[in-house]
């Protein structure tokens, strides 16, 4: 037990206020960063298993604020309100990240468990804390592994309940959103191709394999392998690109 000087105590208080963590966790983080606040934040946030204790009363309050009057769920109106409070656009991709953390089953609604459980995990029990977390959540999209998880999560989340496949329009919308974060130059051609040639729902396999395709195959398709077990839609897309001269064909 070190004797904390007055400067240190201040910092601990500050830290606790901002992150909502316990004193112990605050001291740990600050020590690890040599009593620099910014460093301590980094340390703290990069340790996801550090659960900050959230006040369950606050959480209830928050939930009730957004919950629908007739149903025990947060529906469209509630979400609009939430977005307002957070000062984000409802179309903002961070909403997707939030839903991912909450393991939400369907877009545009949160169950009680999803909402509260998610916020607990994130260590959020007030709107301010929520707002503060937003930039962190946006940064998660830059992580390869997390982006993939979020991308694949998006399929189940965006599709209609009870359907196996994702409606084409929704899929295109999601792709536009996601590939704005992680740039893929062919995304517009892909969407156009689908509308012209396919015009049907998208299967899960196609959805997930598309990300692999975007990640591994270069823009000139020079390393596209015909025998690469790509879904047939992607094979057709490659044909479409070569037919329309968007990409030079390769004689393999």
């Amino acid at each position, binding site marked *: 037990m070190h004797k904390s000087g007055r400067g240190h105590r201040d910092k601990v208080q500050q830290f606790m206020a901002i992150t909502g963590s316990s004193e112990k966790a605050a001291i740990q983080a600050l020590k690890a960063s040599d009593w620099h606040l910014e460093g301590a934040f980094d340390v703290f946030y990069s340790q996801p298993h550090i659960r900050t204790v959230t006040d369950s009363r606050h959480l209830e309050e928050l939930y009730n604020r957004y919950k629908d009057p007739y149903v025990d769920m947060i529906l469209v109106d509630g979400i609009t309100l939430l977005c307002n409070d957070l000062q984000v656009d409802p179309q903002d991709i961070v909403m997707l990240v939030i839903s991912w953390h909450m393991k939400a089953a369907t877009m545009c609604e949160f169950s009680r468990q999803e909402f509260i459980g998610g916020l607990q995990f994130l260590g959020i029990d007030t709107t301010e804390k929520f707002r503060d977390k937003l930039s962190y959540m946006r940064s998660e999209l830059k992580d390869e592994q997390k982006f993939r998880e979020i991308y694949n999560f998006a399929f189940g989340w965006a599709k209609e309940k009870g359907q*196996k*496949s994702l409606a084409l329009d929704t899929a295109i919308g999601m792709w536009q959103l996601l590939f704005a974060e992680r740039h893929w130059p062919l995304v517009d051609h892909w969407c156009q191709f689908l509308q012209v040639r396919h015009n049907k729902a998208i*299967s*899960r*396999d*196609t959805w997930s*394999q598309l990300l*692999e395709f975007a990640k591994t195959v270069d823009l000139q398709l020079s390393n596209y392998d015909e*025998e*690469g*077990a790509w*879904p*047939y839609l992607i*094979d057709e897309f490659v044909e479409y690109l070569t037919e329309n001269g968007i990409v030079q064909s390769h004689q393999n």
Partner: protein
Amino acid sequence: MSAQKKRNFKIEAFKHRVDLDPKYAEKTWKVLEHAIHEIYNHNASGLSFEELYRNAYNMVLHKHGEKLYSGLVTTMTWHLKEISQSIEAAQGDLFLEELNRKWGEHTKALQMIRDILMYMDRTFVTSSRKTPVYELGLNLWRDNIIRSSKIQDRQLNTILELIHKERTGEVINRGLMRNITKMLMNLGTSVYQEDFEKPFLDVSASFYSGESQQFIECCDCGEYLKKAERRLNEEMERVSQYLDAKTEPKITCVVEKEMIANHMKQLVHMENSGLVNMLVDDRYEDLSRMYNLFGRVTEGHRLIRDLMTSHLRETGKQLVTDPERLKDPVDFVQRLLDEKDKYDKIIATAFNNDKAFQNALNSSFEYFINLNSRSPEFISLYVNEKLHKNLKGVNEEDVEIVLDKVMMLFRYLQEKDIFEKYYKQHLAKRLLSGKTVSDDAERSLIVKLKTECGYQFTCKLEGMFTDMKTSQDTMQGFYASQGFEAGECPTLAVQVLTTGSWPTQSSAACNLPAEILGVCDKFRAYYLGTHSGRRLTWQTNMGTADLKATFANGQKHELNVSTYQMCVLLLFNSADRLSCKEIEQATVIPSQDLKRCLQSLACVRGKNVLRKDPMSKDIAEDDIFSVNDKFTSKFFKIKIGTVIAQKESEPEKQETRQQVEEDRKPQIEAAIIRVMKARRVADYNNIVMEVTKQLQLRFLPNPVVIKKRIESLIEREFLERDEGDRKLYRYLA
């Protein structure tokens, strides 16, 4: 001289010593030398063998073998030199004869000398490792005569010239030749080879090289081959007549190379007379000759086979893509069968049933039959024609033969499932119209198909036959149970078809005429009485009816019509004139079918039992129909029904193909599941390979379709992608 009196024999030791006469050896030798001379001078008769033998024996015994031996060499050599001169002196043709004669004399002399000197041969020669007498004699002949500079070349040239003469048609003295070559052989294989065989082969090579060049410029393929064959036979005969047998393979090799191998390609491709012409004109003899001759040369058969294959593929391709041919499916198939027969005959007669050629034939047929996607349909139509009573109709034994041939074509099909679909349709029509030539023939074909493709292929077809039989029994039972008088109501013959066994046809039920409703309902009641839990639907687009018609002009006829036609005609029992629209309303027959039906009743000469107003060929809604009271026909029974199977129209064909494609999807999926169940994990290429193998007896699956099926199975959670390697698929139990 032994004494006359008998004596006891006593063996005494040598009492007197033999004189070591220093001149003894010389004296003895002189005797022998003289003898040799005499032998060579044909004066052998005066010699005593026993004495000479004894002299030689004594010489050797007294250690004068060396003198004897070298004396022999000298003497013989001297004689040979004399002989050599006499041979050299011979003029022209006599040269060989002289050589031959002298050789004969020499060998005879040698024999005698050898006999005389046999003791030396056995003792002195062996111990001092000298050449035995006979062999010595041969070697001396070789060195002094054959290899003498004045004789060697002359001998060779003379022989070669004679052979050349014979090749150009002259007759030569073969006996003499035989003796000469025998002589060379006796002198040693290497003598024969160096002094005759090798130069002979070289000269022959250039002779045939020149001759083949000549022939190829002025002969056509068949003639050339005849000549080549003749030359080959000649050479073989030559060998058997006066050359050593070992020369045969060598000289035939020369001829084969010069006359055949060097000109193979040119011959086979010769315009107007090459292989292709021979095939087209069925020139069995020429083809057989070519096969035999080319067989002697490496790659000879391959050359023929490859050209035959490409020609066959080309002709076949033309056959199946010629638009004229496609108009008549039966003729189309007949031509294919004819082509197969033609080539079978060629391979059997001219190519010795060579398996490799059979295979080439099969692969060519497989190639071009599948170029036309309608081949399966046409083959089924062909079978239909052979098995349909009214058509060409063949007797039973012939049918069996034809069906076997058709099965051969069937084996070449890649899309056997399309054939199955059409075959089912056509068979259904044949069975239902009662027009099959023979039940046994039908069943026999089904057995053949089952042997080829397995039980699954034919179980439904067999179901159709069962239904026919069962229906007969049902009808019997029905009439037995009704026990009503004939003539009370129309006679009904029902065939009950099990759905699933018969080809699916959507049938919109039409209104049956009142005249038959009664008995139809009675039947329905009877049947459902004995088979509860079943549903019966009248297939009004498939039946037939026999109607008795009386026309206003007194003419009575019996009309054989389809069910639809019956519905239409019976309307006129209660109405004189009806519009097309009215008929449609009354009968509820679908308009396309109705149009065809009305056309067949009103627009066909000799069968126009109805009159149409206006008289045009097309049917319009407002056209008025009435009974044609002026109808006449010299036949009492008239057939108006349209039941015979025909080549499908374009839209029908598309529909059938679509159905087949749909049917294939579950089959592909089942195959994929089987493969994945066995392997657990597999990549795309392996799956395609295995699935193709599994389905090859029915059709060739499209790899893209296989991929789509895989993805469908992924969606339905039968399969998943491997987590580690996205190129692998995994079976989900």
